């Protein structure tokens, strides 16, 4: 069945590309980009499917048994914009156009120095005959790297100034996963790109499985009174687990902001191993205590500008400690 679904998606991708994208590239003299654009159509298609599935599967959960009820859901609209422009590929395409040439430059330089990246199946040779197992190993390694990126997002004041945009949402829903500052996205891409230069990227054979991972991330942000239980919360990140990470209350001892808790993106095992696992029976409110009002409840562009303002405040604070800076960026006592 999966093959049949994938086949249908491939045909839609090919038709969109041939009828709408390639003729435009040809007219504009951009045929060098045809294969990247073809991959871009695939990214957008799978992204659209992931968004549609997240809505169809998780919106009923939010209506049925929400963790929080709000009369006014206007703040959610900004997250819908974030989701659409990220998962349909607008922001990733811009980042790709800006960062890919830099990545090529670095990679090319390293090749001239004789460095060739080694993929995991070359390091662990029994994996070679099991591409799906290899794919899963990559997912685990990347999830591990995401855990540590997330730790740094909370630990470093300047990074927290950016990441606080993801956390300042007090109406966390299935749409909130992509609520990130563009510079934070740049850092994420550099992070992943660096890993790719060390161990390459996952095998490309399982795009449908990647949708499954995106759904887990959407479910983690879903406004539903649901968790995977005591044992389950060591196996997979769920709505309650991630809500605790997003809660105003979690910035309390021993889990202050700089230490934090429940950082894992997909596998909670990293939190267990590194002492940041915090099981809870509660469904706390989300947000950043110091941030309210228009700085939080604004449209996409205003929210992005707010991110630059917060980053600027932190940088000014570095230069002159008497300046208050971005209050939430200050390490907790």
């Amino acid at each position, binding site marked *: 069945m999966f093959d049949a679904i994938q*086949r249908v998606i*491939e*045909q839609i*991708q*090919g038709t969109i*590309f*041939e009828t709408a994208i*390639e*003729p435009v590239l*040809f007219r504009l*003299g951009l*045929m*060098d980009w*045809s*294969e990247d654009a*073809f*991959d871009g159509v*695939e990214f957008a298609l799978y992204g659209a499917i992931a968004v549609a599935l997240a809505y169809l599967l998780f919106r009923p959960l939010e209506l049925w048994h929400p963790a929080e009820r709000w009369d006014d859901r206007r703040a959610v609209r900004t997250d819908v914009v974030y989701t659409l422009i990220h998962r349909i590929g607008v922001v990733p395409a811009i980042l790709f156009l800006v960062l890919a040439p830099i990545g*090529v430059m670095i*990679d*090319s330089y390293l*090749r*001239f120095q004789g460095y*060739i*990246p080694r*993929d995991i199946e*070359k390091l662990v040779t029994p994996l070679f*005959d099991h*591409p799906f197992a290899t794919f899963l190993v990559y997912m685990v390694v990347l999830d591990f790297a995401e855990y540590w990126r997330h730790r740094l997002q909370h630990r470093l004041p300047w990074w927290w100034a950016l990441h606080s945009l993801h956390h300042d949402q007090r109406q966390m829903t299935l749409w909130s996963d992509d609520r990130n500052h563009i510079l934070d996205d740049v850092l994420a891409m550099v992070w992943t790109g660096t890993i790719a230069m060390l161990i*390459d*990227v996952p*095998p*490309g*054979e399982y795009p449908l499985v990647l949708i499954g991972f995106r759904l887990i991330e959407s479910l983690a942000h879903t406004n539903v009174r649901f968790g995977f239980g005591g044992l389950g919360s060591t196996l997979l990140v769920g709505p309650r687990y991630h809500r605790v990470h997003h809660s105003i209350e979690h910035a309390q001892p021993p889990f202050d902001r700089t230490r934090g808790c429940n950082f894992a993106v997909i596998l909670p095992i990293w939190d267990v191993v590194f002492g940041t696992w915090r099981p809870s029976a509660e469904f706390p409110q989300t947000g950043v205590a110091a941030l309210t009002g228009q700085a939080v409840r604004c449209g996409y562009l205003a929210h992005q500008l707010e991110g630059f303002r917060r980053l600027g405040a932190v940088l000014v604070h570095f230069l002159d400690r008497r300046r208050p800076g971005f209050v939430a960026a200050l390490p907790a006592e």
Partner: protein
Amino acid sequence: MLNSDDDTLSVVSSDGYHEVSRVHIGRGPHHLIASLDGRTLIVAMSGSNELVLIDRTTGVESQRVEASDPYQIGFSPDGKWFVAASIRLDRIDIYDAKTFQLVHRLPAATMPSHIAFARDGSIVFVTLQGTGSLIAIDLATGKDLWTVPVGPSPAGIITLPSGTLLVGIMGSDHIDAVDPRDGSIIRKIQTGNGAHNFLVSPDGKTLYVTNRVAGTISVLDADNLQVTGTLTAPGGPDDMALSPDGRELWVTGRWHAAIDVIELASGALKATIPVGRSPHGIFVY
């Protein structure tokens, strides 16, 4: 044939017109060629930085050779050199053909794509897709002899028996006939939008050109380069191969994940065979 986005190799039956098997082969397989003695297939794996050598008779993998990002590959006609172009990393690698030891590594701005050789094997010509030009490199010294503009997004390139080069101008609707001595354009021959790659029939009389944007294949007389016919091949026609009896043209369709089999006598589409994502290199035997 190779499914470049799926990291797989498909074995397709030329009798039943169906995919027999599909196996994971590594990262980013794009092109494959036969070894000089014809006994081995060499698959260029741009993603996993290696060449995969497959015994042509048994289909069994015999060796993997480390090579940095090989995309297009080829042996010089004199059998001395093996050249790999890295379209992603803007680089051309020249190896000793017998040992696969790297001899020269040259930066090539930008997007070195397809390669062809001078008939005496002394020079390699590489299309530079990103800068719309063609570069000639002396294989022994690794020196750039000349670089000339040819047209937007040049892709496929072959050497005719006369030594003249033909270059597919993918950003336009024609192929260029190029003088190998200095890169000057002798003639332009209109084929179709997105002229991409070439195939010469075994008797050397017929030339096929895929037109990727037009979704067609132009048939040319190889002697006078006159277009004698046009075949329909939708879905981003890319690489081609002829069936051993010369009656069928097999074409990979990059955009529709299938191989098209065209009956040359009638020009009819005989079969469309679903394979993996972004099928690219093809080898029929």
